[in-house]
């Protein structure tokens, strides 16, 4: 086939408009496939960060919307292998406009930095945050997006919780592992805004284990502690907890796989149609090549090579588009961390390019087989 490469190349460029349109259609389809594969990979094949490997999340077994008593913390702290426990509560609320979506979490400042060592900020900001009840921390990306700086006021209008909370920005942090786009504030400030009878609750407990190896055992023991309690718990790794958020969207895995399958099948049909047309137009030339001594194998190689070339060009272009799109999706107004860190990993690139090659070859297999089997006499009689 390599010997006939110039012929493959010239055949591929014979009908420039059709080749361009085919390359573009394959590129767009593979771009979609690439983005979905990147999302799939990001959701289901991304390892926990070194910090995450130590962390667990305990929540109400019934649902995330159900809370737990804060007294559970003391019991969890007694479990062997637990180094730290911190109450965390999703606040929700609204900042200026409902469209301004970002995570607002109520936490315990005294335990926060031990729990999340990947969060970095200046020592004086850290102390100011811990000292002042109404202080808040903003991720750098978030602060830049809303043009906020240390000392500025932030007002959140409650939706899950009643009332309005006023904060002063006391620190802008960086995150060494993921986008710094969240807001943290003292949970005591939230409790104080609520009536006394409503203050004893914890949405989740962040649990820090003494080693990644003890994480599974700690999870089992925490849940065992509350098995006979009125409020049972579900403890999982932080990574599993994040994935459970994704599962709220439905069967994401099946959705992503079915979209990938549908896209692949569609490209296959488009490419097969193009190759069938292209080969049909050239049946007579197949007869000429055979007359000159080209074997069936050589004919198949030339046609398959042409299809593979076109599909591979589409694949490369599709990869470039997917790369741009994944970069763009990082700035999408979604609160799924995986989307904000979306990237085309080498494994996804390899799968994408391999898929384009396979699609190219599969789409041309039947036309190439048919052409190679055509007798010279039948081929020469073909009017094309």
């Amino acid at each position, binding site marked *: 086939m390599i010997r006939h490469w110039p012929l493959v190349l010239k055949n591929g460029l014979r009908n420039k408009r059709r080749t361009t349109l085919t390359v573009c259609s394959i590129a767009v389809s593979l771009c979609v496939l690439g983005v979905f594969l990147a999302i799939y990979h990001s959701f289901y094949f991304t390892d926990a960060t070194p910090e995450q490997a130590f962390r667990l999340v305990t929540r109400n077994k019934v649902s995330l919307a159900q809370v737990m008593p804060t007294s559970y913390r003391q019991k969890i702290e007694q479990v062997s292998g637990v180094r730290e426990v911190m109450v965390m509560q999703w606040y929700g609320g609204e900042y200026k406009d409902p469209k301004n979506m970002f995570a607002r979490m109520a936490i315990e400042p005294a335990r926060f930095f031990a729990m999340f060592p990947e969060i970095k900020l200046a020592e004086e900001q850290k102390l100011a945050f811990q000292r002042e009840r109404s202080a808040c921390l903003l991720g750098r990306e978030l602060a830049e997006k809303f043009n906020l700086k240390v000392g500025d006021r932030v007002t959140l209008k409650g939706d899950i919780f009643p009332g309005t909370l006023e904060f002063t920005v006391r620190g802008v942090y960086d995150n060494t592992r993921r986008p710094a786009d969240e807001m943290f504030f003292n949970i005591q400030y939230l409790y104080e805004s609520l009536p006394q009878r409503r203050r004893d609750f914890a949405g989740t407990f962040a649990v820090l284990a003494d080693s990644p190896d003890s994480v599974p055992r700690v999870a089992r023991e925490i849940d065992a502690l509350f098995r006979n309690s009125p409020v049972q718990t579900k403890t999982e790794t932080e990574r599993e907890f994040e994935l459970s958020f994704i599962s709220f969207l439905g069967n994401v895995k099946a959705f992503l796989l079915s979209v990938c399958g549908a896209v692949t099948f569609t490209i296959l049909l488009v490419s097969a149609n193009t190759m069938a047309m292209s080969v049909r137009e050239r049946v007579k030339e197949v007869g000429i090549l055979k*007359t*000159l001594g080209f*074997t069936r194998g050589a004919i198949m190689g030339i046609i398959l090579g042409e299809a593979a070339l076109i599909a591979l060009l589409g694949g490369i272009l599709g990869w470039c588009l997917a790369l741009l799109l994944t970069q763009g999706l990082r700035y999408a107004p979604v609160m799924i961390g995986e989307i904000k860190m979306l990237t085309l990993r080498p494994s996804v690139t390899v799968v994408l390019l391999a898929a384009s090659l396979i699609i190219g070859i599969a789409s041309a297999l039947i036309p190439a087989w048919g052409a190679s089997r055509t007798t010279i006499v039948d081929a020469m009689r073909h009017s094309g």
Partner: protein
Amino acid sequence: MPDPIIITRKLRREFIRDQFHVIALEDVDLEVQPAEFVALMGPSGSGKSTLLHLIAAMDRPTSGEIKALGTDLRALSDRQIARWRNQHIGFVFQSFNLIPVLTALENVELPLRLTKLSRKDRLEHARTALELVGLGDRVHHLPRQLSGGQEQRVAIARAIVTDPDIILADEPTGNLDAGSALEVLTLLSRLNKEFSKTVVLVTHDPHAAQFASHTRHLEKGQLLPNSVAV
């Protein structure tokens, strides 16, 4: 007298076309001597082209024997036939049949791509063949940039570039004006006389047949017994 380069015995070719049974050739016995120039004549549908296709091993007979250069063509596999054709047969079509996306040089080089020659040697051979047909100055032209006569000369260059023993021409002047036809026929005659190539020319043009040393007539698939020596 040397052994015939082409021998057919009781050669028969039948087709089924749209449920109709067609006998294209019936009991054809033909012998062509080396370095002979034979014209096959006959009306349309008489089986001239079918016989030429069988000699070129482009088609297989229904029954009968066919030998070329001492090889029983029926005994060869498809792969062996392809190689045999590449080495021993040069075929010239009526409608030139050049590959439109390739230049004259690339078209002529095409059969050499199946040989072990280096690219440099292939191009050198192709250039020589083009010069032989008088198109040394048209090597980089695409078929659409050439006249009909020039295209046919490129086709002849492609047919002779592998230095085949037999040149088979299927109405090579059918699509040409008188001047170009004369050039092509002169060229075939030269290849026969100067290079001792065996030429089998299918034509229904008596003027073209005059270039041949022998003429055989086909009618309704049968080879007529009269052999006309010129």
